[in-house]
Each structure stands twice: as structure tokens, then as C-alpha cells.
């Protein structure tokens, strides 16, 4: 059983929703990443999503675009990201790690070499924004061989026919993109997400994580009532941006505070579910 499945199963047994924070690896500098990963776990993260910087992040909004630019100004590569994971694993072999990024850095490395390297340092899953199930045969084979979970995106526009492919080819969980837009944009339409998650539950046997546009405790509270995992990114990354020129300590304070806001809200939602 994969580390992700183990984690989600255990949380489910306790009636809990996973909190999954995202940061871009190497943002604002390479020294910050491992420390922030540990910090987020200490503040209630159940899994971690680590963004792999890519020069052309076409599904990301301005907040994550700038995070990627900060990381790339230090030439952070896919190999560097794997190195951060290796160092993180020296002190934490429990928290699942999902790499999120774009296909080209993986293409450059080669699917098999990448999967072997990722697996050996303790990565658990890979989410590649511009790799839909249709093109994924060789990629999936490589991930499978190394026991890595394959997370696919599902969006408000995903038709039924494609949900079947995600359910069949994905593993770990399905990542529901809760709005039409780039990361960090607009306000979520709670009623719309509710209807969509109900639709997905009928089609997907995978657990569902919800992300994009969850910026505060209140939204996280709502989303925790719907999903198995709540993914937060731009809300945290914007705090890194605001403190990018300060000490790591200042970033940790800001991220810690925001994580606590999310964790508290999700726990509140879980407690409510427990009473039903």
C-alpha cells in the first residue's frame, strides 16, 4: 500500500480531512525548502505538495509564476528538488510527498530515469499539469515500475468520458481543480464545487483532493466538508513572496500562522462531520 493511500485511509478512519500545502521548491531560495516542509508538517500538514519550477508555468497565476521565477533565479532544477526530498526524508519518512509540475523537465531527464530517482529519494506521487491520461502510456509505465502514485487533475469541464480514464489511470487521489482558471484566482463558488464533487463521487473510486482558489480558513472549512483532502498553494506562496527578502524565520512565522488557520478550520469541519 502506498504512503498516500495509508495516510488517507488512516485519516478517513478517524473522520479527518487531509491538509495538503503546496510550496514551490527553491522559493525564495534553495535553503528554505526543507525547513519549510518540516515546519508545515509540524503545523498540521498531512501530505506535502512540492512544485518543480518550470520556466513556462501556463496553468499558474501570478503568485506561483513569481515563486517559480524566484526559484529559477537560483537555477533550481528537478535534480535539486529531488535532493530536497532526500534531505527531508532523513527526518521524516512518514509524510507523503507529491511533486507537481510540468512535463518538460521530466522529459529532459527521461521518464524512467526520473521515476527511479524520484522513488529512491522518497517521492510518493507525481502530478504533471500538462500530461493528460491520453498521452501518458510511457510515463505511467515508468511511474508504475517504481511504485509511484499518479495523480491526475479533474476540472469543472471534465466530461464523464474522461473521468473513467482518470479513475483507471490515476492512483493515490484525484485532484479536483475547483475553478476554471489558473492557480490562486477568483473566489470559489461553493455551490458549484458541491454539485461537482457530488457528480465526481458517482464516477470516481479514488479519494478526491480539492485545490485552486482556497485562500482562507473559511473556504478551507467549506472544502473540507466536500473533499478527502484540501490543497492550499497560492495563499502560502504569497506569504513567501511578502517575506522573500526577510529572514527564513519571518517566512516560517507567516507560513506557520496561515497553516494553523487552515488546520483549525479543517478540524472544525471534521468535528462537525463527526457529529452528523
Amino acid at each position, binding site marked *: 500500500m502506498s504512503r498516500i493511500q495509508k495516510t488517507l485511509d488512516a485519516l478517513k478512519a478517524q473522520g479527518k480531512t487531509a491538509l495538503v500545502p503546496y510550496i514551490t521548491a527553491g522559493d525564495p531560495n534553495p535553503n528554505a525548502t526543507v525547513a519549510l516542509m518540516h515546519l508545515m508538517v509540524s503545523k498540521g500538514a498531512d501530505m506535502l505538495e512540492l512544485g518543480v519550477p518550470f*520556466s513556462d508555468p*501556463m496553468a499558474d497565476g501570478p503568485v506561483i509564476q513569481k515563486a517559480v521565477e524566484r526559484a529559477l533565479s537560483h537555477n533550481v532544477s528537478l535534480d535539486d528538488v529531488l535532493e530536497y526530498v532526500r534531505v527531508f526524508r532523513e527526518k521524516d519518512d512518514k509524510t507523503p510527498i507529491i511533486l507537481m509540475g510540468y512535463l518538460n523537465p521530466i522529459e529532459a531527464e527521461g521518464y524512467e530515469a526520473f521515476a527511479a530517482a524520484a522513488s529512491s529519494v522518497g517521492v510518493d506521487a507525481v502530478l504533471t499539469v500538462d500530461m493528460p491520461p491520453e498521452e501518458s502510456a510511457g510515463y505511467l509505465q515508468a511511474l508504475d515500475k517504481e511504485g509511484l502514485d499518479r495523480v491526475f487533475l479533474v476540472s469543472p469541464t471534465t466530461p464523464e468520458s474522461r473521468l473513467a480514464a482518470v479513475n483507471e489511470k490515476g492512483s493515490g487521489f484525484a485532484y479536483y481543480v475547483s475553478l476554471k482558471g489558473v492557480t490562486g484566482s477568483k473566489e470559489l463558488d461553493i455551490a458549484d464545487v458541491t454539485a461537482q464533487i457530488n457528480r465526481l463521487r458517482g464516477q470516481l473510486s479514488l479519494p478526491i483532493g480539492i485545490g485552486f482558489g482556497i485562500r482562507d480558513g473559511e473556504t478551507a472549512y467549506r472544502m473540507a466538508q466536500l473533499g478527502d483532502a484540501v490543497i492550499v498553494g497560492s495563499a502560502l506562496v504569497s506569504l513567501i513572496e511578502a517575506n522573500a527578502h526577510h529572514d527564513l524565520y519571518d517566512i516560517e512565522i507567516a507560513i506557520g500562522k496561515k497553516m494553523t488557520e487552515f488546520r483549525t478550520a479543517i478540524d472544525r469541519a471534521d468535528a462537525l462531520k463527526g457529529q452528523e
Partner: protein
Amino acid sequence: MTVDFSKFPDEHGHFGPYGGVFAPETLMAALEQLTAEYQSLKNDPVFLGELSEDLRDYVGRPTPLYYAERWSESLGGAKIYLKREDLNHTGAHKVNNTIGQALLAKRLGKKRIIAETGAGQHGVASATVAARLGLECVVYMGADDVVRQAPNVARMKMLGATVVAVESGTRTLKDALNEAMRDWVTNVDDTFYIIGTAAGPHPYPAMVRDFQAVIGREAREQVLEKEGKLPDALIACVGGGSNAIGLFHEFLPDEDVAIYGVEAAGHGLETGEHAAPLCAGTPGVLHGNRTYLMQDKNGQIIGTHSISAGLDYPGVGPEHAWLKDIGRANYVAINDEEALQGFRDLTKYEGIIPALESSHAIAYATKLAPTMNKDQVIIVNLSGRGDKDMNTIAQIEGFEF
């Protein structure tokens, strides 16, 4: 060679290992819908009738195939014909495609169109068809290109389009494409994305090629009429590669017709400051398709340089990548200096001011023609006119504008 070129791309948009659909999930349904709609319309006589009427009465097709006699004689080799895409309404080949895609947008009931642009020709062509159909139009353009192609920015605004200067990344065409994709992901319900080149996720490379293929169909007929034989060589500049594939496509099965795509060598291939992924890049995935890219060893896209904004792009249409690999087309590169000389030559000998993009094809012809006999024939795609480049030229030549 026994390739049946009509069988490419396959139904999933693959040209051999290139092309495909590497798009974010939010766009997949829209791309599937567009593919289905295009498949059903591309052989529909009503749609094709409407398209060819627009091309004739609005764009001004067929464009002439002009024998550049004085220029040819100055080079002392092959006879050079120019396919005069510069004479299209809006001044370049780009409108052939925007007319077609706008008809599709109308059929799909979209109220808003978006486009990316480098040199501004595609932006102008998009703004033009949007004005004609009464659609809202937003054009994304790299902030650097907004400056160097100012006349086209003014034209777009005049036509009622909103021009968004993109400040992210390298502030050129690739970043405009990223931003247009972000817009499309956000507004996919009511928005049609008119991609300007034969790249992007399927069905765009095939669809744009089909709309541009009118160039080669006309040229083939015209050269047969004038010369009684097929040309010996075709030359076209390649950025994303839509004018080139438009000229080449009809001639692909004609094995004796040599094909040359000309990339931008910028400051020189050896300097690394260029925009020549086919000549000096490696395969990868960007903007929805697998193709040759300018990238570093880590798969990061690297900055490009060309004097011409329209060629200043780190990728290239997937069909070109495939034609390179199978050896059907040759890809060469012309640097900024050589392109400028081509620009001056054509202006001087023929009284035709070419776009800086097209000047790369002109410059390659000046190299190729002298190596050929006087009874041999070259067709150069004169993809656009140079009015838009007056700012750049004025700076270089040191005159007030």
C-alpha cells in the same frame, strides 16, 4: 519516399513522435469539442464555400506569384518567384488562418476571441476578423514586442481589440502564449482561442496548416501555369512555422521539390542567442505539443533572440519537427545581419519592402539561387510586408522615423 502525407497527423494529433495534446485538464474538453467540430466542418461544402468566398472577397486571394526578375538576375542563378502573401488584407499570411478560425468560433457560438502575437501580424489579423464579426477581442503580446512592433499595436487598438502587454518571463511571444492559455483556462466557456501558428495542442497544428495550405495550392497551380513545371525549391521562414507549412504542404508528395525552412540564427547559432530550435534545439514538450525546443539540460526553456519578433519563439510546429526527422524538409538558419541584407536587397531590386521575418527566407534565397541553374525555379514565400518593422529599421539604419 513512400510516406502518405495526407495521413498525418493521426487522430490524436501525432506527427510521428511529435504533436499530441499536452494541455491542462480544464482545456481538454474544449480541445475535444474543437477537434470534433473541425473534423465535421473541414470537408463540409457549405463551410468551405463560405471560407473561400471570404478569402477571395475579403482577403483578396489568390495572391500573385511574382517573378522577381531583377533580383534573380542580380544573383545570377535560379529564377525566383515570390508568393505575395504580403498583399493579403492586413499585410501577411496570418489572416488566412484567422478567417478560418473565426468562422469556427462563430459556429461554436463563442462571443469572445483571444490571440497571442509576436510581430503583431496575427494580433492584427485576429482583431480584424473580430471587428468584422462583432466579437470581443483580447490580444496578448510580450511587453518587449509591444515596443518593437508599435505600429501593429496601434492597428489592433484602432480595430477595437484590447492589447495586453505581458511582463512575465522573457516578455516575448512564448510568454504571450502562456498568458493566452491562462486566459483560455479561465474563460473557456465563452472564449475561442485563435492560435496564430501551426503549433499548440491538437487540433491546432493540423487546423492552422489546413487553413494556410491555400498558399501552396495556389502556388502550385500558378507555377505550373507560368513555368509548365514544378519548382525546384521552396523557401519559407520558420518561427512557429505556419507560413512555411502553408507553402510546403501541397508539395510534400513531390519528391523532386526541395524544401527549405529558414529559422532565425539571431546573433549566430554559435552564440546561443538565436531562435532556431530545429537547427540547434532538442525535442521536448511546450505549449501543448511535443516538438523541438530551445531548452537547457534541465528542460527549462531558454530565452531566444531574433531581430524579428515573429520568429522569436523557442518552439516550432510539430509537423516541421517531423519533416526534419524524416528528411523531407531541410532546416537552415539566417542571422540578423543576413536578414537585414535580404530586406535591403528586395527593397532595392524589386521595390518590395518585406517583413523582417520574410527577410530570412529572402536571405536564404540569395545563398541558394547562385548555386542553381538559370532554368531552375525557386518559390520564396513572402509571408508579410515590412511596414510594421520601420521602427526597428530606422534605429538600425540611423534615420529619424
